[in-house]
């Protein structure tokens, strides 16, 4: 499959996808100057700046707030970035541990074949049994055709194994190019293991190195990031060569496969394949990872920064239809973040509002010093103007902001509860999230549609309404319906997870508790503590008995969910002052991420 000009089409996506990201970070790191200039260029901020300048006429103040915004951006973004990193690491951790266990088992199996150190450096093969000449190979399926997302994954896998006492080398398709041939990949291998660069690299050197005192008795793991992109003949030679030195150097191969099991079959000839003793590992799929990231960053609001429904829809579309990589999703998020902090004058409050523990203290000190213009600007925000009756004081602003925070908390709790229910129906959080941020005019009518109760109020012309009509049944409604259909055991699990999720929102928490106690009471005889272990037959029997009761319970739980959606799931764009924390300018984001048309 390897074409001669493989290397040519090799770097393209890699390069393009990363270019923008690098640029961004450069922009950030090269100082705030660029951003500042952008602020002045962008029409909105220019207007804002004008506004403020008219009032104060003081440049110094302006710079002060710009500096604050810059600071807030750095803070928020680093928070988001580290959260994403943690999330991805946690997702991979189980697989990594599994791989490590397998590496240890394989190594034991190799050692059991028995070899002596003196033989290890001999040039002739010492084993004749074909099963021992097989290489232990782990295929790690990344489940994404694009491999960009997994560059870091394999690096971290390497680090993980290294920290558990393996020798690890990370190779990639660049090392397996037809131009450099087998010498290229051996050189790179030796460079990583021996820390020397040799012009005549050959694998006997690896054997000599391995028989050194310090290196002996540890597994040697070779990780190949992206086997699809490797030149087939070079990879075959490499595998054959390793199998000739099998046992003498206990190499364990780990190969990343982006597509299907057919990939190795297509690339490698059968005489090579039969040298592989293959095990299979699955990484989290992109949508799983996406859900995890969305949960941590956009639903749990790790930084306070959030996006409007149009932006969310744009990002979702881009992920599903255009690109399909987390890398570009994160990139879009970053662009949104940069844009937000450069265009929204009050965005600096984000840091103080969401990150500092006693935000109240901060406000009491700060809002006194708040320039009049800022307050005026804040109360002139479209979201505030809508029901603008209160006095324009710093206290009120602070109060409204903490209210905003509380409402967002309720919102995220509700979305997470929905997600828990939706999980049983394979509903993805990304879809739920995009639906939950859509603002609606009348809460009650919208919620009617959520319930799918069939009452279609023709007067309602909210976006949400249109949306629901077009879709017939929304994800939210699907999730709620699922609650109705859940068997009792799953319902119990669901309530348990709700109990955990709603801990911070007392009103809901109490109701969940109440439901739980009802469930326990009604099914007290049949439900043991270890519900998860109940065999199917048993549950179905209890189901028969309690059919009616549990149906009532299901109905109650669904009601609760409906109430939560109606009363607590207020999309951010319906809350006053949301402009401070929420980025909505989808056109800007689009032109930034796709380039100007």
């Amino acid at each position, binding site marked *: 499959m390897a074409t001669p000009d493989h290397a040519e*089409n090799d770097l393209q996506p890699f390069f393009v996808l990363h270019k923008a990201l690098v640029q961004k970070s450069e922009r950030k790191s090269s100082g705030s100057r660029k951003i500042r200039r952008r602020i002045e260029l962008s029409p909105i901020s220019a207007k804002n700046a004008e506004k403020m300048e008219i009032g104060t006429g003081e440049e110094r103040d302006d710079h002060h707030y710009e500096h604050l915004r810059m600071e807030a951006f750095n803070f928020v973004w680093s928070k988001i970035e580290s959260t994403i990193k943690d999330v991805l690491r946690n997702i991979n951790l189980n697989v990594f541990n599994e791989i490590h266990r397998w590496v240890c088992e394989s190594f034991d199996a190799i050692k059991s074949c028995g070899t002596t150190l003196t033989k290890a450096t001999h*040039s*002739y093969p010492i084993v004749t049994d074909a099963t021992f000449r097989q290489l232990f190979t782990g295929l790690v399926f990344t489940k994404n*055709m694009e491999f960009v997302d997994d560059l870091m994954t394999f690096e971290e896998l390497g680090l993980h194994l290294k920290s558990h006492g393996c020798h690890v080398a990370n190779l990639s398709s660049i090392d397996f190019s037809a131009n450099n041939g087998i010498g290229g990949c051996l050189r790179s291998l030796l460079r990583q293991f021996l820390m020397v660069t040799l012009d005549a690299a050959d694998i006997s050197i690896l054997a000599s*190195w391995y028989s050194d005192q310090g290196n002996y008795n540890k597994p040697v793991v070779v990780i190949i990031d992206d086997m699809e992109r490797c030149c087939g003949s070079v990879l075959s030679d490499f595998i054959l*060569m390793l199998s*000739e030195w099998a046992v003498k150097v206990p190499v364990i191969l780990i190969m990343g496969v982006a597509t299907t099991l057919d990939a190795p079959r297509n690339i490698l000839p059968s005489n090579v394949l039969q040298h592989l003793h*293959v095990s299979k590992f699955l990484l989290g799929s992109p949508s799983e990872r996406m859900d995890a990231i969305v949960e941590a960053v956009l639903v749990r609001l790790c930084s306070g920064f959030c996006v409007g429904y149009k932006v969310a829809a744009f990002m979702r*579309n881009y992920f599903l239809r255009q690109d399909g990589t987390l890398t570009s999703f994160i990139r879009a998020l970053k662009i949104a973040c940069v844009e937000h902090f450069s265009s929204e004058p009050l965005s600096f409050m984000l840091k103080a509002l969401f990150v500092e523990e006693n935000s109240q203290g901060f406000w009491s000190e700060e809002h006194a010093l708040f320039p009049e213009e800022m307050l005026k600007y804040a109360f002139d925000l479209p979201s505030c103007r809508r029901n603008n009756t209160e006095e324009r004081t710093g206290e009120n602003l602070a109060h409204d902001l903490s209210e905003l925070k509380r409402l967002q908390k309720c919102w995220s709790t509700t979305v997470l509860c929905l997600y828990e229910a939706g999980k049983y129906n394979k509903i993805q959080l990304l879809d739920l999230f995009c639906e939950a941020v859509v603002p609606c005019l009348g809460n009650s009518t919208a919620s009617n549609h959520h319930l799918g109760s069939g009452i279609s109020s023709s007067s309602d012309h909210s976006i949400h309404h249109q949306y629901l009509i077009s879709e017939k049944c929304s994800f939210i409604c699907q999730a709620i319906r699922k609650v109705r259909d859940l068997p009792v055991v799953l319902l119990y699990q669901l309530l348990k997870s709700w109990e955990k999720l709603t801990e911070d929102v007392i009103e809901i928490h109490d109701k969940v508790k109440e439901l739980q106690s009802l469930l326990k009471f009604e099914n007290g005889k049949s439900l043991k503590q270890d519900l998860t272990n109940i065999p199917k037959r048993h549950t179905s029997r209890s189901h028969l008995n309690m059919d009616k009761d549990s149906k009532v319970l299901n109905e109650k739980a669904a009601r609760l969910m409906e109430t939560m959606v109606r009363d607590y799931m207020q999309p951010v764009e319906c809350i006053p002052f949301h402009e401070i924390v929420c980025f909505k300018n989808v056109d800007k984001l689009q032109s930034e991420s796709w380039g100007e048309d």
Partner: protein
Amino acid sequence: MGKEESPQITRRTTRSSSSTPILKNGEETTKTSEPHPLTINDLVFGGEPIKLDELLSSFPGRRIQILELMRLLGPLNSPMLPLFLYGGTSTGKTSIILQIFRHLNRPFVYSSCLTCYSPRILFESIMNQLLLHRKNADNGYASAKRCERPSDFVVSLREALTNVLNTLKENSGKSSSRKPAGQANGRMIYLIFDNLELVREWDKSSSILPFLFELYDILNMPEVGLIFISKVSPDAYYSDRGYVEPIPILFPDYTEDSLRQIFMRNQANPKLYSSFLDVVLRTFSRITRRVDELSTAFSPLFKKYCEPLSDPGLVPNEDMKRKLFSHLQPHLAPALNEIFKVQSQPSPEVEAKQEKVKRKSNANKLGGREAFDEIDFHMSTSAKYLIISAFLASRNPATLDASLFDSTGGSDNRKRKRKSSEKSMEQKETAEQELLMKGPGTFPLERLLAIFQCLTSVVESSLGEDQQINEGLGAGNGDSGLMSDVLLQLSSLCNANFISKGGSCPLEGSTRYRATISEDLALKVARSLKFPLSKYLYRG
């Protein structure tokens, strides 16, 4: 020479004393001691010497070859002509020659042209072994001598060989009365070149291969024996250069009986394994006679075979055998067809199974989602359309594009198809065969993009349900179509080996592409998009 001699004598005693424990708890003893300097005695196979009887019995079906080899190698210190061992993969060539040298305890230098993938590395590997050089961190893992050209190699080889032979001569003269275990026999040294067939691919000018064959004449040293091992017969090496042709020794494929004997070696429960072989050997040996392939196929099967047994030491009776066979039978056919077996780690497999069960139960309710799950990796929607376009471009003749993608869509195509099938079934079949033989066709980028645009515009106008959701969510950005970054997607598909980029066509001068995905995968992708692929596919 004397310099080399003195450490050798002291070593000899330590080596002989340590050589016995090496076999039992070798790892421990050798690991703690510093690696000793290499001596001439490290050129023998080492370990416990093996008797001729043992040698013969450990290689069933190879008696003739072993005896022939022994005859050609001759008694101690007799010169010999170059040998050429050939035969298919895994017919025992390398193992037998190594075990013969273990039996004879004569010094040899082994180099495999697989490990030594270039002339330089081959030369240096031979020199390192002759010069008793060990690469380590202290010498920067460098070779003892740098030789890149054959002429350099000959000079240093001759020098090194003379030294080694002198040492051997001294040794054999001195210690004829009292011979330590590890001591090399005789005054001959043998150079073994394994995997010789690979040398043919090294350089197109093919100077190395004749050089190796001529080495015997070039060196002109009767004390040096040359042995070539190759998977292909001597006919494949053009021997019109007038050098002494090596003596060919053929290692034919094993017979079924020999295979049985080979597999019966070292079995814990011979009766049980014999009954297992009764079941599998005949069918498998029709497909392959290669010991390596068979043994990798047998080891999991035997485990399966033993599964119903409570005690692996049991001697099965007829009844039991029948039971075991019926247990094994369903696994036989897949094992015959597949040499590439994938072991899933237990935990995800179980999960996947559970998921499958769950999915099945949900299948009725959620037809769409179910179909989406069938491709087990993520691809963006536009990449999916692109790959379908590429598949169509590869499968359909270019002349048909216009009729397929006109306003009437695929309805026109159906009629044509039926007509042709009415015409004559035979013709259609041959055409299909031809298509299969030809494989996927190539296409220029422009054609791919045109088809892609047709497909996406058709889809976007007909607005499938899925599409509408996206439209709804994407309210506000009208141009969220599928057309952006197509070239980027194309290069991703190339990287994933779904589309291969061929050489440029001499007439058009532009790069041509070819879709290399199977119809199965294409259909899966189409299903996930709810795209009626079969409607657009031209068949015979």
